[in-house]
């Protein structure tokens, strides 16, 4: 099949960028989207042009490296699917496919489709953990976790930190990301001692990074390749208000 790619090209963080068209004449529908970009890049290299820079690593939908906005949708049109798991059979012959980077003030563009997502790391560093020094852990069975809580924690722990939620949100908010980590840790008994400080510090860090606020549009959940539910955001709000009113710091 044939498609036209319209890709955002930007040679560096401070350069201005533009959309550039590339004609792809021999696309195998079984290719993944990234494999198609590989083919394009091989061609560009041989033509002496700069290949398109994009982040990727596992290509299994789990590391969270890949991410581009395809036809206005983070990770493209298929739900619950990362860019690396998107296959060309999702498109039709003759399609024009617009490919853009995540757009967020908190994720500055490094080059082409590559953005800097270290803001997420800083949010986790501010409190997205349970403090337990190596070797100091009690016997694993000393604390039981009801299965529903364990499942809820797991559902939220599935977040791959790709940033699609931020890319999708009209306000560039990272609430879904933060809420997933707060939900994961705050519902577990192990997470209780730091329950308040965790959420207070993480929200403070999130605000410092320049993400927007949540207006409950739900675009984040729709774009999330792991289906982190919007209910997690409600939980984040609850945890935050509760912690604020508790007077703990």
């Amino acid at each position: 099949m044939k498609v036209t790619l319209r890709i955002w090209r930007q040679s560096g963080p401070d350069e201005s960028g533009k959309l550039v068209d590339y004609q792809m004449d021999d696309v195998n529908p079984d290719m993944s989207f990234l494999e198609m970009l590989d083919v394009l890049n091989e061609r560009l290299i041989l033509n002496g042009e700069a290949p398109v820079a994009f982040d990727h690593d596992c290509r299994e939908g789990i590391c969270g490296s890949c991410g581009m906005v395809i036809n206005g949708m983070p990770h493209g049109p298929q739900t619950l699917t990362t860019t690396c798991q998107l296959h060309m059979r999702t498109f039709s012959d003759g399609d024009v496919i617009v490919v853009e980077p995540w757009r967020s003030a908190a994720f500055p563009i490094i080059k082409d489709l590559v953005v800097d997502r270290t803001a997420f790391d800083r949010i986790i560093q501010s409190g997205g953990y349970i403090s337990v020094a190596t070797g100091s852990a009690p016997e694993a069975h000393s604390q039981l976790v009801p299965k529903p809580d364990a499942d809820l924690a797991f559902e939220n722990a599935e977040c791959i930190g790709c940033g699609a939620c931020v890319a999708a949100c009209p306000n560039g908010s990272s609430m879904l990301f933060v809420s997933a980590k707060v939900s994961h840790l705050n519902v577990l008994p192990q997470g209780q001692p730091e329950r308040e400080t965790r959420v207070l510090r993480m929200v403070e860090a999130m605000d410092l990074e320049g993400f927007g606020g949540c207006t409950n549009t739900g675009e984040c959940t729709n774009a999330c390749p792991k289906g982190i539910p919007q209910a997690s955001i409600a939980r984040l709000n609850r945890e935050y208000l509760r912690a604020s009113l508790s007077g703990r710091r």
Partner: protein
Amino acid sequence: MLALWRSTIGKKAVMAVTGLAMLLFLIAHMLGNLKIFFGREEFDEYAHWLRTVGTPVLHNAWFLWISRALLVVCVVLHIVSAYQLSRRDLSARPKGYAHRLRPTASYATNTMRFGGIILALFIIYHLLDLTALVANPNGVEGAVYDNVVADFQHWYIALAYIVAMLALCLHIAHGFWSAARTLGAVSSATRARVYKAVAGTLALIISVGFLATPIGVMSGLVD
């Protein structure tokens, strides 16, 4: 508390609480308005009662003034928060996408800012019209029934009110359920559906209730 106000979530909670307070006011206001269908006397009497309610514990009209003060505080906090958050939200995405899609969220959700501005303008006009009476075609103090009827005999005034009430309907439809979420109440997808349904119903009841007056006047039911 200051940290709470400074945070995005705290500000949003302020919007939710003030929004819900205004909503309570609107319900009372709307029910009061419906008294117009029982005639001039009863309506004017009700308006008069509003100024005496709370006595003798409170001095004449104090209750009204306290309510007004609280409402002003709500409106101000709501608008300030909305303004600050909106600025933040807009600067979080300095450059938009070239390929723009229709948002998957509802129309109500995506028109909160715009609708809010319409409501703000409306509130100012509404106060000038029926409280300060400077913009009212009749403008006689105490003659509340006549003032209202005078308004809606002009199609453009009626239109202004109708548009504002439609905006209000949308604002509440998203606002109520959004506030629930902001305050942490919507903990599952099923509950979300329930809250959405409640929000829609509430929005419909309030706006229909308010719309009844201009429509009543225009159709000659009230004169």
